[in-house]
């Protein structure tokens, strides 16, 4: 139905979208997730040309949206859009907001548009607010009216741009319930959202966007339960990380400790947890890994804090032949190994192509 090829968008010097490729089929419910500022909304806005893409193609039912000859206004009518800030027409009553498009653009009779609008209002549960003005509604009600207004144009796809981000937490569910209902009815939708549980329940496909590209995509089970790539995993599990690179045997240990301390404070870790991290890092890096490193030294340390579980993950990536400092060539009574093993809960070590990756859970 819609296929996007090599879509890119620059704002001046900064490239917001780099190379987006995606196929959207009829009946799909696609959630777009990802950290803030990675171009999720921009991507959605490019789809109906609220933003003009810098390059690439958007093909809808065989017509290229970026072709100068294409009637953009016609094509836009097939794509509804629901905004974060509702954007209801404040000088019109709720019912007039919904009737405006059908009467003026679809050339429906006023009576027909009115009846249709009342049906939609009933569907979103707001029939009694038909004669209210937007500023007399709560945020959740406004967003439901906005959805009804979009549906009144009988779109083939509805784009939701963070529909619940501007809402009070108490009103999020009433809006999501409406979207869920639409999904059940088989409406094709694309939803930019931060509601992970909702995205997991309702979507048929999830796109994870990171730094202007679709970093990982797949069915919700994959993205949420078995993310294939690090950044996806970090995002899904809300992992905050601190990374430090060691490039010399005489590296600055104080700077590393100060970094861990600062990160720990920021994540509200206790002084004891911070001390434990420092201890483990010191034992592993100084006493075990450094002596085996060639020149130059190539060790990357990453400290991760998993918000959901409160756990701490240490990841050490280092060059060299396969080597697990906790298992290989360990002498009886090696104090460092004993200390680390006492502190950690779990440990994995993989080695491939001259790179080792040791992951500890504290």
């Amino acid at each position, binding site marked *: 139905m819609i296929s996007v090829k090599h879509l890119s968008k620059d704002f001046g010097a900064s490239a917001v979208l780099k190379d987006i490729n995606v196929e959207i089929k009829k009946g799909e419910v696609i959630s777009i997730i990802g950290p803030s500022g990675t171009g999720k909304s921009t991507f959605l806005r490019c789809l*109906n040309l*609220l933003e003009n893409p810098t390059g690439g193609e958007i093909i809808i039912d065989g017509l290229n949206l970026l072709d100068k000859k294409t009637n953009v*206004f*016609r094509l*836009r*009518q097939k*794509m*509804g*859009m629901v*905004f974060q*800030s*509702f*954007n*209801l*027409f*404040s*000088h*019109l*009553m709720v*019912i*007039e907001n919904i*009737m*405006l*498009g059908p009467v*003026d*653009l679809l050339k429906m009779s*006023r*009576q027909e548009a*009115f*009846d249709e609008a*009342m049906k939609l209002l009933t569907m979103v549960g707001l029939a009694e607010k038909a*004669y209210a*003005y937007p500023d007399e509604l709560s945020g959740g009600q406004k967003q439901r009216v*906005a959805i009804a*207004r*979009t549906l009144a*144009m009988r779109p083939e796809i509805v784009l939701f741009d963070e529909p619940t981000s501007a809402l009070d937490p108490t009103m999020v569910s009433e809006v999501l319930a409406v979207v869920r209902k639409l999904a059940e009815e088989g409406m094709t939708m694309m939803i930019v959202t931060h509601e992970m549980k909702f995205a997991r329940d309702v979507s048929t496909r999830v796109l994870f966007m990171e730094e202007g590209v679709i970093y990982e995509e797949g069915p919700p089970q994959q993205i949420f339960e078995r993310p294939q790539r690090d950044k996806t995993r970090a995002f899904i599990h809300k992992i905050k990380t601190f990374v430090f690179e060691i490039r010399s045997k005489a590296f600055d240990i104080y700077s590393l400790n100060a970094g861990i301390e600062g990160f720990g404070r920021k994540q509200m870790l206790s002084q004891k947890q911070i001390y434990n991290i420092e201890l483990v890092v010191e034992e592993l890096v100084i006493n075990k890994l450094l002596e085996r490193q060639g020149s130059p030294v190539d060790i990357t340390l990453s400290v991760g804090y998993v918000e959901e579980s409160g756990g701490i993950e240490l990841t050490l990536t280092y060059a060299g032949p396969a080597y697990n400092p906790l298992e290989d060539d360990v002498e009886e009574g090696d104090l460092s190994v004993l200390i680390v093993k006492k502190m950690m809960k779990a440990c994995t070590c993989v080695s491939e192509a001259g790179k080792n990756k040791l992951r500890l859970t504290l």
Partner: protein
Amino acid sequence: MPGKPDRAQADVSLSSIKEVPITCLADLKGKKIASLTGTSFDVSINRVIPGVTHMYFNDSSAMVQAVLAGKVSAWAADAPVARLVAAQFPELSILPELICVDHYGLAVRKGHPLGRQASEVIGRFKKDGTMKAMEDKWFGADPAVKVIPDLSGKDGFDGRAGVIRFGHDTVTEPMSYVGDKGASLGLDVELAVRIAHALNMKIERVPMNFGGLIAALQSDKVDMVAGCMTITEERKKSVDFTVSYHSGGQALLVKKARAEAAGARNPAVAEKITGVSQLAASFRRTFVTEDRYKLVWQGIQVTLLISVLSAVFGTLLGFGVCLMRRAKSAWLYIPAKVFIRAIQGTPIVVLLMILYYVIFGGVDIDAVLVAIIGFSINFAAYVSEMMRTGIDAVDKGQHEAAVALGFNRVEVFAKITFPQAARHVLPVFKGEFISMLKATSIVGYIAIQDLTKMSDIIRSRTYEAFFPLIATALIYFAIAYAMMFLLSLVEVKVDPKRRARVVKGVARS
């Protein structure tokens, strides 16, 4: 002098300021003297009295009040005018010494044959007694005979020789003024009418401010002007004069000493017996005598015509300027910005005069039209900026939502942006319209007789300041109030909350 010399001396000097009457030209040394803007009294006075400060006024009634109130020591006027005023105001007297003797002439454009033709006719009138008869009539006391004779059709007149556009002053009774139903009256006017008749030409009378007469002549708005105009060397540099038709003089009106004035009784003073009867008399003089309410009504119509049409065209033009100002192309927004800055930085009086005397100088165009053009331009500059802020104040998200529904830019503007911007703009628009309506009071500068000018004309006849000015203010207030009311009806229309909550064209189910 023994005793209290200081006190006695102080008394003398104090009374000398207030009471010592002016009896000769020398007494006016270093004093303030009033004269009409654009006249040559200042030059003549400087020749005979040293150190005078000149004060320039636009109408005679203001000068009478200024002399009576002691704001100026004397008022310089043409002898016939001075005599008439002195007869009406017993507190005023004419100094026996004249500033100078002078000669009045009709002025025409340089090199225009009308000057020579008119001079010949004036020569004839002097010989056959017509001139003398006119002087007797206009300088006399009987108001009943003071009308311009209707000469059309007499002596084989058919007006084939052309038209004389005759500009004349409005405030120098008995020479040149405006009377009953706005009719041009006075010796100068009758003379011009008789000259036109003698030359077999039609005449078109254009009442104007004295100060604008020569400018109007030079910019070809009129062909001949008059209004007690003294023939001076300086004026001869810019216009031609006919031979002199009256040798008058320049006189000074001063306030009489209190004792002298007490003996005389001013009709205006006599009516000060009760406030109510005085008010009634003022009302009669200002509105009823000579059907002056008709003048006022004409003035109101002109004021309304100029303000309403300027508001309509100014709003349309302002909308265009606003669109240009909001455009992305520098070719559009820079001219719009320059236009707005230039107009906002120019006084409307100056703009009007530039339009009337310079830009439309050689074009035969109705002054009212020029005023409408000027005020439209001025209004547009202000309105365009108002509209711009109003449009910018409309939430951008709604614009996007409408675009996303499939509306094009024009439709979005018409259906979403405009109705909301109108609501932001109307309250300020109302204020700007009212201030424009009041600003139209300066159109007298380009020979338009609006409400203010009509009140000037009436005051130049009644020599009264208080009542006509207050009445004019009240009329302006009433007009402004009515306009505010009309605009607030529109305001209700664009305020969604004050509309009935019904959906048009739908049977409510």
